[in-house]
């Protein structure tokens, strides 16, 4: 497993290079860190890192060409790539994914309340 990690983080140049600062990977929010972790955990087990990388390049190009592309977020592209790959391989279904997103959204809002002094943020 350590070798998959090494291979992934060795990607330091080009459009798929992960954001870094002072030599470390940077995650703007915890979900980005989890998205990174998911892909590395799956690399070699479910798909090849090289395949994911190639898909990520296409996804980034697609985003750049889109009219309604919002603000750039590296890990949003990462997550989109992961979703697409898992759906294409039949490992998750689009419908179940949508339902789960709604569920998780509710749970997280609940957790957020507890941590921030009872005020909804």
């Amino acid at each position, binding site marked *: 497993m350590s070798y998959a990690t090494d291979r992934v983080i060795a990607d330091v140049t080009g459009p798929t290079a992960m954001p870094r600062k*002072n030599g470390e990977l940077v995650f703007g929010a915890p979900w980005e860190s989890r998205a990174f972790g998911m892909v590395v955990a799956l690399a070699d087990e479910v798909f090849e890192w090289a395949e994911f990388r190639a898909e990520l390049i296409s996804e980034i190009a697609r985003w750049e060409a889109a009219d309604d592309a919002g603000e750039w977020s590296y890990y949003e592209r990462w997550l989109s790539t992961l979703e697409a790959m898992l759906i294409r391989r039949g490992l998750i279904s689009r419908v179940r994914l949508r339902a789960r997103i709604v569920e998780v959204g509710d749970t997280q809002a609940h957790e957020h309340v507890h941590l921030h002094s009872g005020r909804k943020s």
Partner: protein
Amino acid sequence: MLGKDQTYLALRTKAIESLLIETGLITEESVDSIVRTYEQDIGPMRGAEVVARAWTDPEYKARLLENGVDAVNEVTGGGIDPKEIVVVENTDSVHNIVVCTLCSCYPWDVLGLPPSWYKAPAYRSRVVCEPRAVLREFGVVLDPKVEIRVWDSSSEVRYLVLPQRPVGTDGKSVGELAELVCRDALIGAGLVKA
């Protein structure tokens, strides 16, 4: 700590701090003063002073190469942790560079806080197998005949590089010479320029 946001990390740190202070095992003052010392009071200037003195005082230089801790304490007025400091001298034929491949051990007492690149895996992994290429990335291009020695600080011993005095600095005072010495040169990742 994995996947937690900055707010959580700050809260967890505060929780630990407040509990430790309550146990009476540490004080808030000790927590803050230690970092303040390394951030403000100790910078690479300590190392620079040591180097400038070695350049101008051959007997001091001999003492420095023989017993780093005692000689450094002469300049800093004492207070260096009794960990051993070994000073390695750059010459026309040998260039030294220091690393800690296993974590980020660094001569804090003499140089203050370490630079980020020193702590990151790129430097730590590569300097022990391609030091010449690494030095080039720092802008240090050495003649292929110059021997490179990489010191991996795997024990409590801390290594300090004594860089070569640049040509054209005759007549400069110790203070002026100290100002020329940059932190990277004390690690071996840079040269001192006149």
